[in-house]
């Protein structure tokens, strides 16, 4: 039995070191936290789009096909625009874009339960006793955004993002429920002049109350009130308006998932550093092939169009695109013509922001049961993400008096750069 509570084997000494650092860290807490908040200077900010596949998508039926083998199942494999890379026949548009993205086929993890696996793949850490580890979106938002940027800097759509208040209110995900009404309650219910009078009264009323009251709750409310005001008036708000896109483009992206991908493109175009878009339904314990085929069509339209647009608009250079779920699925097909949870060797896709396209990292054996070469761990995956975004993976934040690295001792996958 593996230790399910910890991401990697931890011994007492390591934890004691944690705690000694913690005890001292608690004394220096504010200073260390402040250090962790200095953003590194950069000339051009990068962005990241994470496509989150809830349920645990089957790798053999998407990115790591095994044609001709029993485990390969019902789908065929197709050649792509990347030499030597084959993927599922149900991802043809992505096949055309393959020379722009790369597949890691040898990811190996240890969390086979949905919530734990999702937590691990979002934060780089297994859930430990309710400690709020920061998900990649919060870190990216914190590192890559300007303090005065009027739009939300971490937008999430249909994805279960772990919440961590570690860098403050601004870097929690801003959830969009409905792409056609992404920010509800944006327009005042009264005319502009009257709204202006109200805003003035409110500002004065709050100033008086805040003068004598410090504390983070008042600070948080002050920030939200200001952000709400900014959001109501910024011209960048047009990025949220999908009706500005030509019909042909909206149609190409496809269904609601695709529309969210389109919105993600618009948001990174105007400088939102992190957008997460979810496509769920991948937990195919039964009737795997029909379900995956349907999901693949939706994925192909949305992700395929997104890649095409990012390339054509020269955005891929500065935009990291990630495709991942909480784990993969069993190579052996079960009695229900389905596949169950599988963490031993599965696939993620990475593209953009310095990641070279058209590459395959790692191999599984001919039946998809073992890693044949180049295993990749979750810390490696995160180190790669941060390197590509220009963020130091060794940087630390303070969590309950303990220093936590962005990527816990991972090594960026050098073959991708």
């Amino acid at each position, binding site marked *: 039995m593996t*230790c399910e509570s910890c991401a990697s084997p931890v011994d007492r000494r390591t934890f*004691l070191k944690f705690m000694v650092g913690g005890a001292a860290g608690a004394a220096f807490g504010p200073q260390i936290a402040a250090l962790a908040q200095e953003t590194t200077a950069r000339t051009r900010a990068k962005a990241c789009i994470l496509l989150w596949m809830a349920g645990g998508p089957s790798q053999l039926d998407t990115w790591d096909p095994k044609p001709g083998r029993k485990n390969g199942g019902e789908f065929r494999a197709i050649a792509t625009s990347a030499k030597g890379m084959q993927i599922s026949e149900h991802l043809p548009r992505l096949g055309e874009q393959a020379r722009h993205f790369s597949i890691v086929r040898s990811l190996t993890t240890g969390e086979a339960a949905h919530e734990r696996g999702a937590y691990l793949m979002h934060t780089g850490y297994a859930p430990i006793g*309710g400690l709020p580890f920061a998900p990649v979106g919060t870190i990216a938002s914190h590192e890559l955004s300007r303090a005065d940027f009027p739009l939300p800097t971490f937008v999430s759509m249909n994805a279960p993002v772990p919440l961590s208040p570690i860098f403050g209110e601004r870097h929690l995900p801003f*959830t969009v429920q409905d792409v056609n009404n992404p920010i509800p309650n944006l327009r005042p219910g009264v005319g502009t002049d009257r709204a202006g009078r109200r805003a003035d009264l*409110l500002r004065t009323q709050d100033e008086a109350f805040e003068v004598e009251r410090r504390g983070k709750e008042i600070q948080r409310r002050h920030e*939200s009130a200001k952000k709400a005001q900014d959001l109501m008036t910024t011209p960048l708000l047009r990025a949220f308006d999908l009706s500005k896109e030509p019909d042909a483009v909206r149609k190409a992206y496809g269904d609601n998932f695709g529309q969210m991908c389109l919105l993600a493109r618009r948001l990174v175009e105007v400088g939102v550093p992190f957008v997460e878009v979810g496509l769920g339904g991948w937990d195919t314990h039964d009737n795997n092939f029909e379900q995956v085929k349907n999901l693949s069509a939706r994925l192909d339209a949305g992700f395929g169009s997104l890649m095409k647009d990012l390339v054509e608009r020269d955005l891929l250079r500065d935009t990291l695109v990630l495709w991942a779920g909480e784990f993969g699925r069993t190579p052996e097909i079960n009695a229900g013509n389905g596949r169950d949870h599988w963490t031993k060797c599965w696939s993620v896709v990475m593209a953009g922001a310095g990641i070279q396209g058209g590459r395959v990292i790692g191999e599984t054996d001919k039946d998809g049961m073992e890693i044949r070469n180049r295993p990749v761990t979750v810390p490696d995956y995160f180190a790669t993400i941060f390197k590509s975004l220009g963020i130091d993976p060794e940087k630390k934040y303070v969590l309950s008096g303990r220093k936590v690295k962005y990527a816990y001792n991972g090594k960026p996958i050098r073959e991708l750069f």
Partner: protein
Amino acid sequence: MVRALGFATLAAALLAHAAPQDKDREKLRKALEYARKIDSALKGRKDASPPASDAEFLRRVHLDLVGTIPTLAETRAFLEDGSPTKRQDLIEKLLASEAHADLWARQWCFVLFGNYYEIRANVGGKNVSPRAIRRAFEEFRKWFRDHLAKDTPWSAIVAELVQATGKLSANPVLLYKTSFYYEGDASLNGADGMSKSLLGMRISCARCHDHPFDRWTQEDYYGLAAFLVRMKGMASSGGGMMMKPDNDNETVDVEFVEEPKGELTMPMTSKVLKPKFLFGGVAGSTEARLPALARFMVMRENSQLPRNVVNRTWSWLMGRGFVEPVDDFHMQNKPVFGSLLEDLTRGFTANGASIRFLLRAICNSEAYQRSCAGDATEPFATAAIRQLTGEQLFKSLVTACTGGDAPDWTAKAVRDAWGDFLNQVRPLYGADGEWTEVTPLPGNTRQALLLRNGGFVENLVKADWGLSGKVRAMSGSPGERISRIFLAVLVRPPTEPELARYAAFVNGQGGSREAYEDVIWTLVNSAEFVTRH
């Protein structure tokens, strides 16, 4: 008749029929002793905030104990009351109310279940029907509410939770155990869950290795889980309930039994762990394990059970616990004001493990009744400021904008509005938020937009039947109308500068209806309104 009875017997007879007020007075007296102990332990900090005004206290104690601000009528009555014991009397009145037991039961349900709208379970490969769970939860929270209303000793409540068996449909208390049957082994989930909610400790690290910074070893962990290893939950067909499962993969009832055999082996070894409680206590070899666990949980030697209740209750009223996080007691996590924590723990146990004792002691203390204004950063030197919960915000908005007596919370229109409001509040927490109507709102940008521009608030602000209409209909100067608005919304009279500012505004708009609506809108959107302080 009197001559036939001995004097002692007569006295006993008289005492047995002692007026309930006398018993309550005695309990109050004991609690007030502990209020003095609290103040004694916390005295002498130079940066402590001054005492809260009557208005500050009134609003705060209402929000904390019954989940809403007072009505305009209640506010006027309290502020005008000259009695020297009015604060103490108000506390007693609130504690005795139905609203109080109802609210605090749900707060404890959140401790036991997390988001209790999303309880899931799977027994024997079948999902427990969400409808069955919803119904069981309704009964569970009523069971808990009734206990709080009667001020049942905490140890009795815990014993019921731990040793219950039978069918969920007949005994909703079993919902607690049902919740362990989700994602993973039920006895291990139960060990984790009970430690966390009943003892305030996170011991799940010790599943794999000796706890890195606390005293618990792997043996301790599995020794605790061993109490639960013979507990078995099975899919059942639902006894007296008329529910049918939606499909073959579902069950509408769960039956819990304790099997006569079954042992827990520590993983990666062949070592059998006997049931041994964390704070001492080994179950006898022929003893049923669940009742044994209950016995050890509530035994006098387990001071962590009452300590956890004291810590949580304190954190709800004072903004943070003696130990933080409140579910993370461990050796390296030193409490602040540790000897006060111990004093209150002993006091709680000595006074019948009564939650009401604790609430009386804390709410009547000077520490609880400090103002929130000030620069103090030390714990408990100033009143805690927190975002309102969804329930507090809704009820306060409706109460404020009614501007008179209490709204009828059971009226269909109000219940529908509450449902709508919850639907708008849910997305504020984000897809993964652990929340219910009793957790503080996130206080984020979306929430600010909801309150500023949302239809719900706008309609309340404009309501003819509400504060807006009453202010228009009343006779009096702009100043008097503005005062009424302040009392209804912010539970206090306006300051001189505020009176001047708003009178100027209203007069500048010709005393129009819209001007008064704008005043109401401003106050319900203010930081002062949307926080508990």
